[in-house]
């Protein structure tokens, strides 16, 4: 019985890692790391929206994440320098979110929980949301895998092959938003992007094909989630950051191994 919350936490971590890792591969292949950052930072704004309107947090975050992602896609298409734009949007969204949360009257919010996550407080209902979201994301990715990959490689080639790169972009945007919405409870708005990017980047030296890289990323993400949970319990450190730290260690290891091989 005492381990109950640990099991829920483990399941929550695994669910998020499962969805985030293969999606993260696309994020780095498409050089969307900052895009992921901006979208996940906007999650705090979503929390504020949810608290102000009695929406469930998941709903509020999903809504704002989708809006943010679509806004970014629209703006970058218009020739605005996307590096600067993403930098502005990522931090503006975070700052606005923090301000908005503080403005909501009569609500005492554990802001820290939303910023770095609170995986040990995951409830049964949260678990259901997380696994529904994760299954949805994995399903989307599995269903569109080849088309997404073709569009990532070259939008023009995809177009010539009869695909619609715009549609594939939308699929990724949606998957990213769902992932942000389910991951906020686990690692918090500040570190969602880390969970996307680090396992995928750590998997890169181990893989020869895109599929191999996604599989390795899932494994590394899952192992980091479970390992981070155990380590944080032993050392009494915040769980989300511990998971991310562990993933970063794996990244350093796989990079080191591949560098030594060359």
């Amino acid at each position: 019985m005492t381990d109950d919350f640990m099991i829920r936490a483990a399941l929550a971590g695994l669910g998020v890692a499962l969805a985030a890792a293969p999606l993260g591969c696309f994020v780095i292949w498409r050089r969307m790391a900052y895009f992921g950052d901006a979208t996940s930072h906007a999650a705090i704004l979503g929390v504020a929206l949810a608290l102000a309107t009695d929406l469930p947090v998941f709903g509020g975050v999903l809504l704002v994440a989708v809006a943010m992602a679509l806004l970014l896609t629209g703006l970058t298409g218009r020739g605005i320098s996307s590096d600067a734009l993403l930098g502005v949007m990522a931090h503006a969204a975070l700052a606005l979110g923090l301000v908005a949360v503080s403005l909501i009257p009569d609500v005492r919010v554990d802001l820290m929980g939303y910023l770095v996550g609170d995986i040990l407080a995951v409830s049964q209902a949260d678990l259901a949301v997380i696994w529904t979201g994760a299954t949805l994301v994995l399903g989307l990715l599995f269903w569109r895998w080849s088309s997404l990959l073709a569009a990532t490689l070259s939008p023009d080639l995809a177009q010539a092959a009869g695909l619609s790169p715009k549609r594939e972009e939308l699929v990724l945007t949606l998957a990213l938003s769902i992932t942000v919405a389910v991951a906020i409870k686990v690692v918090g708005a500040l570190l969602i992007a880390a969970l996307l990017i680090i396992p995928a980047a750590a998997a890169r030296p181990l893989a020869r094909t895109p599929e191999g890289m996604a599989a390795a990323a899932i494994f590394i993400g899952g192992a980091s989630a479970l390992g981070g949970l155990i380590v944080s319990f032993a050392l009494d450190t915040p769980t989300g950051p511990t998971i991310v730290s562990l993933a970063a260690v794996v990244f350093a290891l796989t990079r080191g191994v591949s560098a030594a091989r060359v």
Partner: protein
Amino acid sequence: MTVLIGTEGLHLAYGGQSVLRDVNLTLARGEIVTIVGPNGSGKSSLLRALIGALAPAQGRITRAPGLRIGYVPQNLAIDATLPLTVARFLGLPRRISAVRAEEVLTGAGVPGLADRQMSALSGGQFQRVLLARALLDMPDLLILDEPTQGLDQPGSAAFYQQIETVRQRTGCGVLMVSHDLHVVMAASDRVLCVNGHICCEGTPDIVASAPEYRALFGTGTRGALALYRHEHGHSHGPKGDHAHDHEHDHDHDHQHETTGA
């Protein structure tokens, strides 16, 4: 003559900026047509419009029913974070068998590369793998955007030879953009000279002697050598870089051109 693709009064624009106007062209089966023109003249835009990646601002594009297009893009930068074998690349977006992969690779002149990483290929091999991919669906029309970019002279000559072989074997039409003027003239049935619109078109002979063409690529006698020289003369375009560079330094004194840094 079966017409594969044609345009009528095609007008292309990027963000409200017109890049190409009044394009009327047709391309028939078995033809090799090359588009030449300075940078920014709308060549790539035209190809992208033909494959459907860029919507016409005006006019229309007609494709033969069921037309299959094989496309070789101008540059394909594969991000270093994306591991990709040649076989897997060929199988995007539709998986193919190992036998079929080897078949098209052989057809493009690079057998035995299937298990290599795309990032480990030489420039020439990479372009041929792109060609192999374009040949996968047995295209009626092959569209190539500067396919020999980054290849040396023998490399690009061999590449165009390959295109010719493919045309003979499959009877497909070929439309390509090229800067290799000397090769273009030898390898094409027709040449379109483009600079915001189609300045002149016709057989290589006719185009090479057209005043519009000479205005763009310089004068001089026709023939491979002259054209070869032109290829290296990009800087003498209408807005040459030199005038710009020296403006600041030599406001007062034109004579010290060589004594400066």
